[in-house]
């Protein structure tokens, strides 16, 4: 196992900062950047990289959601419903991690990310909001003040079963690959379930904390999650997520969608390349 020296600590800290900033700006968590970096650039075993990444996902989720609590972007009720699926998924993912061939999973992940990237681009100009502030958001919907349009927007949640399935898959992938799972949930909630991107990202950011905990606890019990390596990553991600939320507030939704689509495509290619080795 890699002994920690100041240089390695600084590298992990720096990687965490960048991953955290990008992750928060996109509502993805940051693990999607950190895991490839730790495994490909630093040569960490995948299990160790996934475990470190999960701990940063938890830290990001807690820090970001603490700041956002109260501004109505987080749909608490929907989050609680979908967490049933994400935590069940992460529990199952953590257990099955030993039995499933990693290459098969990487390919599946590549296919899913690519598909979602196309869906995102196809719906780039669509807005899932009801302009009438008095409209009924339904039992699981929500409303929040949107700075861009300067008004209160309302949305309803459609296709809940689809959201549950996506959440289960997201939880599963979270445990197996060490990511938050927002990369699967956010596009699905936005493209098919009627949620505005910001609300979907904020709700997902809250959920990934509990989801990642389900996976991280399993790695911790098996000795794959070492605090000495997790600490610099977590601190870096905290710094990055702090600056990333400012980035997100000052970037338009359209650009966020485009950036997310490009990013998903890059991740897909990386996953295919890794599975082919």
């Amino acid at each position, binding site marked *: 196992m890699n002994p920690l020296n100041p240089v390695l600590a600084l590298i992990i800290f720096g990687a965490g900062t960048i991953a955290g900033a990008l992750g928060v700006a996109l509502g993805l968590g940051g693990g999607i950047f950190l895991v490839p970096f730790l495994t490909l650039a630093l040569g960490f075993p995948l299990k160790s990289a996934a475990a470190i990444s999960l701990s940063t996902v*938890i*830290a990001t*989720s807690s820090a970001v*959601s603490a700041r956002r609590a109260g501004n109505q972007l987080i749909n608490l009720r929907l989050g609680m419903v979908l967490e049933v699926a994400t935590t069940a998924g992460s*529990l199952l993912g953590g257990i099955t991690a030993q039995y499933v061939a990693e290459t098969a999973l990487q390919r599946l992940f590549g296919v899913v990310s690519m598909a979602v990237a196309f869906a995102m681009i196809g719906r780039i100009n669509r807005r899932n909001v009801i302009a009438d502030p008095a409209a009924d958001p339904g039992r699981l919907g929500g409303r929040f003040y949107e700075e861009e349009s300067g008004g209160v927007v309302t949305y309803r949640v459609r296709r809940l079963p689809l959201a549950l399935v996506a959440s289960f898959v997201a939880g599963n992938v979270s445990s197996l690959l060490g990511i938050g799972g927002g990369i699967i949930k956010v596009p699905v909630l936005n493209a098919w379930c009627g949620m505005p991107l910001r609300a979907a990202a904020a709700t997902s950011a809250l959920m990934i904390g509990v989801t990642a905990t389900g*996976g*991280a*606890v399993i790695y911790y019990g098996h000795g794959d999650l070492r*605090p000495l390596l997790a*600490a610099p990553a977590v601190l870096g991600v905290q710094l990055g997520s702090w600056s990333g939320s400012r980035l997100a507030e000052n970037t338009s939704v359209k650009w966020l969608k485009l950036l997310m689509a490009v990013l998903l495509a890059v991740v897909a290619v990386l996953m295919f390349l890794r599975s082919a080795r």
Partner: protein
Amino acid sequence: MNRLERTIGSVLRSGTVASSSLFAVGLVMALTGYRDALAGVLLEAGLVILLATPATRVVVSVIEYVRERDWTFVVLTLTVLLALGGSIVAAYL
């Protein structure tokens, strides 16, 4: 802002501050070689608090939904806790 959202915000904030502080102090001590054993304890504590924070958020949600007598959400949040408990069991199997 409703009470649950406020409580969740403060739970997450305290957990984040506590774990990050422990990580920062522990990491500096470990890297400078100052009292290694204590550094290890601080880092371990930071990690455990980090892992416990989202779980605590779910626990306070259960309590709040019980107070509101919103039984659907009591069951939902308890199910989430059950799944987390399952992870703890799976961790030591």
